[in-house]
């Protein structure tokens, strides 16, 4: 630990039970990005689930919007230590999208317009815990926050909620994504503070 600078406290860190360890509460919605913001036209936008046997399941924007919609209200936790509570979204549950997908895979690799990837166990995309979200706080999701649509998996650190999501590849073997190949945790449970590999 360094020399303490008198009177410096930094951002308030959580003592609240609602926040995972090491997180602080924020009211705004910080924009994080690892590259230029892709601009995706709704006319050409598509979402593709690729099963391990090569079968692909595709949805256009209109087809996605025609599916049953849910409005989750969730807390989100970014690995850069901010948390935002009670955020409201609208989107399609991955349960709905995976329904009818024939797979024996245990892992998923989400991939995005712009090239980002992140891996998750397929089970974590099921059970009403994951969505393809297109609306935030009652308005279309802005591009800097991942619009037209992003993955929303709020029970894991937010880097798993891939912005500008384009599809999910189902895998029999776990394949680490963009941050997972650079030191970040393969699972990323904020309540167990799984930030880095080995945490």
């Amino acid at each position, binding site marked *: 630990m360094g020399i303490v600078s008198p009177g410096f406290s930094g951002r308030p860190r959580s003592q609240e039970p609602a926040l995972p360890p090491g997180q602080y509460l924020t009211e705004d919605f910080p924009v994080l990005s690892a590259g230029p913001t892709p601009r995706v036209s709704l006319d050409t936008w598509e979402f593709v689930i690729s099963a391990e046997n090569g079968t692909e399941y595709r949805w256009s924007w209109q087809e996605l919007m025609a599916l049953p919609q849910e409005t989750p209200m969730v807390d989100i936790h970014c690995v850069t230590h901010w948390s935002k509570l009670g955020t409201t979204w609208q989107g399609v549950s991955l349960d709905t999208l995976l329904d009818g997908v024939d797979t024996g895979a245990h892992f998923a690799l989400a991939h995005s317009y712009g090239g980002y990837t992140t891996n998750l166990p397929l089970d974590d995309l099921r059970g009403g815990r994951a969505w393809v979200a297109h609306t935030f706080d009652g308005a279309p999701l802005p591009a800097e926050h991942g619009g037209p649509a992003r993955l929303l998996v709020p029970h894991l650190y937010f880097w798993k909620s891939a912005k500008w999501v384009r599809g999910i590849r189902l895998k029999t073997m776990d394949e680490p994504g963009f*941050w997972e190949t650079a030191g970040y945790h393969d699972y990323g449970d904020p309540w167990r503070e799984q930030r880095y590999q080995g945490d």
Partner: protein
Amino acid sequence: MTEMSYLDGNMLDGPMRELFTVDLSTAMGRCENCGMTGSMASLHVYSHAPGLVARCPSCESVMVRLVRAPDRAWLDMRGVTYLQVPMPMEQTLPEPL
């Protein structure tokens, strides 16, 4: 704001000097994807992210990723074919090692 959210490769100097004794921002690097060779100081660095991501200013491919945990650092330079680092002139001639 969105496309304008990167910094110059200059800022890599502090984080990289934790790992190296040379100032990599004065080195030249070749992009593995497009072959462009230029100063590492001219890379586009995205720092509002879980780590630092430095991209080629020409093709925007990822050249360097640096993640810093309190007790560890990860450096991924697979997007850089080579680095050309300025060195002080030495009198000795090259010879087989």
